[in-house]
C-alpha cells in the first residue's frame, strides 16, 4: 500500500516583528534597506520543540508508531528533541523517535524516511526552525520561525506519494558550524545561478519521469526560497506553469528553514483539489524532490491547525529590540530579581514527568475531583486512593483570577499569571502568554500551550511546562 499524507498541522508564533521597524532601527548604518511585511518571532519561551508540539497537536495521534523531529536549530545537541515532543504529545512510550538536522533538507529528509519506511504504523514528522541572524543582516529580515507536522502512513491519505528524487552535492551556499549562532552566506547571484538553477532541474526531471507526470500538470510548485526570482526561473526552465508557484509566506511569516518547504506544502494542501499534482523541492547541499497527488479525501479534510489560521493569528510587534533581547544581542538590565538560580532537580522532573510533559491531572476515584499538582491525597476529599491520569492539555478552561506582574523578572514583562479554572473542575495557577491586555478578564476562555517554563542560563537547560493563552475571538 502506498504511504502518503494523512493529516497535517502548522504553527507560526503569534509575535510578528514589523520588518520596517527593523530596517528603520538600522537605517543609520544601512539606509538603502527596504523592507515590507512582518516576520514571525519565537517568543522567549518558544523553541523548535515547543513549536513542533503546537503543530503536531493538529494531527491525529492515533496509529503513530514513530516520530521524526527535523530542525537545524534543535534546543539540544544531546537530549533527543523528538522524545521531548513525543512526551509532550502524550504518545506511547513505544514510539520510535529520531532527530534529523544538518541541512535545510532536514524536513524533507524526515518526510522521505517516513514515506519510504516499510513499517506499517504511521510516522509523525515535525519540522521546525527558529534561526538567529546577525543584527542588520538580510537574514534578520527574511528569517521567520515556525513549525509544521505531518502524519505519514497508509489509509485515507489526502495526498499520495508518486515519486521522489534526491541529489547530494557539496554546494556551500551557506553554513553554520556546530555551536555557532549565525549562518554564513555566499553571494546570492552565485547561489541562484550555479546552485538552484543547475542542481534542481535534473532532479525535478527525474522525479517527474518516475511519477509519470508532465511538468505542465503541476498545480502546486513548492520551492522555499526567499529570492522570488528563483522558483520563477526554475519553473520556466522545467516547463512548470508559472501560476503553480506556491507563495513563500514571506509577507507574514518569513523563512522557517528546514520547516519551510513542508510549511508551504501544508499551505498548498489547504488549496489543493483532488487530482492536483504537488511538487515539493528543497535545497541545501543538494536537493530533495517529492511529487504528490491530492486524493479525493482532501475535499473533506479540514485541518484543525492549518497554515492560514496560524498565519492570521499574529500580532504585530513594533519593538525591534524585543527580537534583539530574545536573541541575546541586547543585554538589558533586568535587575537583581533576574539573578536567581534556575537549577532544577532532574530527579524531581522525572518523577513528575506525567504532570509536567503531558499536563496530567489526577482524578480521584472516590470523589472525582481532578487534582493538580498530584499529591498523595485528594485535594477535595482527602482520599489516599491512587489517582487516574487525565490530561489537561485540551481541557476547556477560563480565567478565575489574574494579574500583570511588573515586579517579578520575566524575559518579556509583564508576567501574566492567575488561577485557571478547567471545565472539568480542576484548577491550576498558571502563567498566561500571548496576552492581549484588553482581552483578559475573569471568565476569558483559555487554551493550553506547551512552552519553556524557565531557562537555566548557567547550566544551559531549558525546561518545559504548559501555559495558558486567551482564545482569540472567544
Amino acid at each position: 500500500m502506498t504511504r502518503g499524507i494523512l493529516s497535517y498541522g502548522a504553527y507560526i508564533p503569534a509575535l510578528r516583528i514589523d520588518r520596517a521597524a527593523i530596517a528603520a532601527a538600522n537605517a543609520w548604518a544601512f539606509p538603502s534597506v527596504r523592507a515590507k511585511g512582518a516576520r514571525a518571532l519565537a517568543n522567549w519561551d518558544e523553541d523548535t520543540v515547543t513549536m513542533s508540539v503546537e503543530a503536531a497537536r493538529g494531527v491525529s495521534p492515533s496509529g503513530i508508531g514513530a516520530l521524526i523531529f527535523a530542525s537545524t536549530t534543535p534546543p539540544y545537541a544531546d537530549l533527543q528533541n523528538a522524545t521531548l515532543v513525543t512526551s509532550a504529545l502524550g504518545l506511547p512510550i513505544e514510539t520510535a523517535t529520531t532527530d534529523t538536522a544538518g541541512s535545510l533538507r532536514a524536513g524533507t529528509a524526515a518526510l522521505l524516511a517516513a514515506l519510504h519506511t516499510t513499517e506499517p504504523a504511521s510516522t509523525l514528522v515535525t519540522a521546525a526552525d527558529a534561526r538567529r541572524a546577525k543584527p542588520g543582516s538580510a537574514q534578520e529580515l527574511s528569517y521567520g520561525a515556525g513549525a509544521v507536522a505531518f502524519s505519514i502512513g497508509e489509509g485515507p491519505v489526502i495526498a499520495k506519494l508518486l515519486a521522489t528524487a534526491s541529489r547530494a552535492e557539496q554546494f556551500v551556499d551557506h553554513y553554520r558550524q556546530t555551536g555557532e549562532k549565525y549562518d554564513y552566506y555566499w553571494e546570492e547571484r552565485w547561489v541562484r545561478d550555479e546552485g538552484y538553477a543547475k542542481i534542481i532541474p535534473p532532479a525535478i526531471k527525474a522525479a517527474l519521469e518516475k511519477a509519470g507526470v508532465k511538468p505542465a500538470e503541476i498545480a502546486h510548485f513548492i520551492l522555499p526560497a526567499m529570492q522570488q526570482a528563483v522558483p520563477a526561473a526554475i519553473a520556466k526552465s522545467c516547463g512548470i506553469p508559472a501560476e503553480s508557484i506556491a507563495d513563500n509566506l514571506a509577507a507574514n511569516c518569513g523563512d522557517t528553514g528546514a520547516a519551510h518547504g513542508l510549511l508551504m506544502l501544508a499551505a498548498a494542501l489547504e488549496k489543493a483539489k483532488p487530482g492536483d499534482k504537488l511538487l515539493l523541492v528543497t535545497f541545501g547541499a543538494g536537493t530533495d524532490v517529492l511529487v504528490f497527488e491530492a486524493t479525493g479525501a482532501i475535499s473533506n479534510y479540514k485541518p484543525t491547525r492549518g497554515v492560514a489560521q496560524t498565519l492570521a493569528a499574529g500580532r504585530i510587534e513594533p519593538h525591534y529590540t524585543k527580537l534583539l533581547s530574545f536573541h541575546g544581542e541586547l543585554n538589558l538590565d533586568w535587575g537583581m530579581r533576574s539573578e536567581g538560580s534556575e537549577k532544577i532537580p532532574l530527579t524531581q522532573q522525572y518523577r513528575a514527568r506525567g504532570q509536567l510533559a503531558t499536563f496530567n491531572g489526577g482524578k480521584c476515584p472516590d470523589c472525582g475531583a481532578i487534582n493538580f499538582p498530584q499529591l498523595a491525597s485528594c485535594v477535595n476529599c482527602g482520599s489516599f486512593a491512587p489517582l487516574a491520569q487525565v490530561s489537561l492539555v485540551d481541557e476547556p478552561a477560563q480565567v478565575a483570577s489574574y494579574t500583570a506582574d511588573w515586579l517579578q523578572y520575566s524575559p518579556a514583562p509583564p508576567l501574566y499569571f492567575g488561577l485557571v479554572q478547567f471545565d472539568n473542575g480542576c484548577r491550576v495557577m498558571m502563567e498566561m502568554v500571548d496576552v492581549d491586555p484588553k482581552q483578559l478578564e475573569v471568565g476569558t476562555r483559555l487554551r493550553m500551550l506547551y512552552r519553556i517554563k524557565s531557562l537555566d542560563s548557567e547550566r544551559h537547560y531549558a525546561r518545559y511546562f504548559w501555559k495558558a493563552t486567551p482564545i482569540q475571538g472567544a
Partner: protein
Amino acid sequence: MATGIKDKVAIIGMGCTKFGERWDMGTEHLLVEAFREALEDAGIDRKQIEAAWYGSALDSVNVGNSSIPAAMALRLEGIPVTRVENMCATGTEALRGAAYAVASGAVDIALAIGAEKLKDTGYGGLPVPYKGSLNGMWMPMGSAPAGFAQLASSYRAKYGIEKQDLKTAIGRVSYKSHKNGVKNPKAHIRKEVSMEEILRAPIIAEPLGLFDCCGVSDGAAAAIVTTPEIAHALGKMNPVTIKSIQLSVSAGRESGTGQWDGSYVPNTRNAAKKAYHEAGIQNPREQLSMIEVHDCFSITELVTMEDLGISPDGGAVKDVLDGFYDADGGVPCQIDGGLKCFGHPVGASGLRMAYENYLQLLGRAGARQLPDTRFGLSHNLGGVPFNGVAAVTVYGRERD
C-alpha cells in the same frame, strides 16, 4: 474538651525596634533592641525566661537557619529556643508557641521574638520566592504583589465593580494608613500622600500601584508572656491577656478546585471564626475597638474587612470610602500605620501588630492613642490568598 487559651496568658512586656531601612544594624542587633525594651517593660531579668520562640521567615537574608543565632544574639543560655517559620505570619507563630507553652503549664515565662533583615537583598520588594522542588516545576513564580493582586480581578468580577472604582477604594486604604503612620515615631514611612499621588503611581502588579504595596523593612519585635497570676505578682494587676490565637492554613482547596471564587481569603474567615469563638466575640463590628490587619497590599486590607466579618460581603468599598476604618472611624484600622507605613519586616510583623494592640489597650500609644480601647485584634497573613496562612489574635485586658 479543649477550653482554649482565653485569659490563660498575659503579656507583661513588649518591645519593638524602629522599623525601616536599618542600615545601622544587622539581625542580631535588631533582636537585642526589641528584647531589651521587652525585658525592661516586663520588669524581669533575662534569666527568668524559661523558653523562647524565635521567628524569621527568610534565613537567606538573616542570620541563617535554626534557633542558634537568636540564642547567641540574646544570650539565652541553656533553655529551649525554637525557630519558627510560617511565611509572613511567622511573628504570630512565635507568639503562639510561647503562649501555648505558658497556657500548658510547661513554663512560667516565655519569650516570643521575631526579626527580619530585608534591606540586605540589594533590591526592593520581598526576595524572589522559593516554592519547593515540585511546585517550582509548574507554578508561576510571581511576586508577592502579583499573588495578592489576583484578589482584585475576582473581587471586581464578583461584585461587578469598575476597575477605576476599585482602584480608588484601595487607594483610600493606603491614604488612611499614611495619615496614621505620621504619628508613629517607630514607623518606617511617616509621610502623608494625596489620593492623586496614590492613583498615579507606577503599577507594580495590576491594579496595585506603588502606594498599594507595603514597605519592606528591617526590624524586630518581642513579647514576654506569663500567667496572669505571675503578672499580678509582678505588679501588673490588670494585664493585657490573649483572648484567642487561631491559625488556618491552605490545604489546596482554593488553588486546586473550583470551590472558591478568588475574591476573599478563606483562611482569614476560618481563623476569625475560631478566634471570635475562643475569645467570646459575637459582634466584631461593635465589640472591637481597633484592628491591626495584614495590609501587605491595599486590596488585601479591603477584602480582610469582609473576611473578619466587620464589613458585610461586598460592603468594604463603602466602609473604606466612608472612613469607617479611619483613626476616628467605627473600627480604627492600622492606627500605627500598618504594614503599609510601620513597615513589614516579615518575621517581626505579627509581633508588631501585637505590640500596637498592647500599647493601645494599656493607654500607652502616645499621639495616636485611641479612646476607650477594650478589645483589639491582629490579623497576620502568610503566603498568598490562594496558598497561605492566616492567623487571627484577639487581645483585651484580663478583667474584660
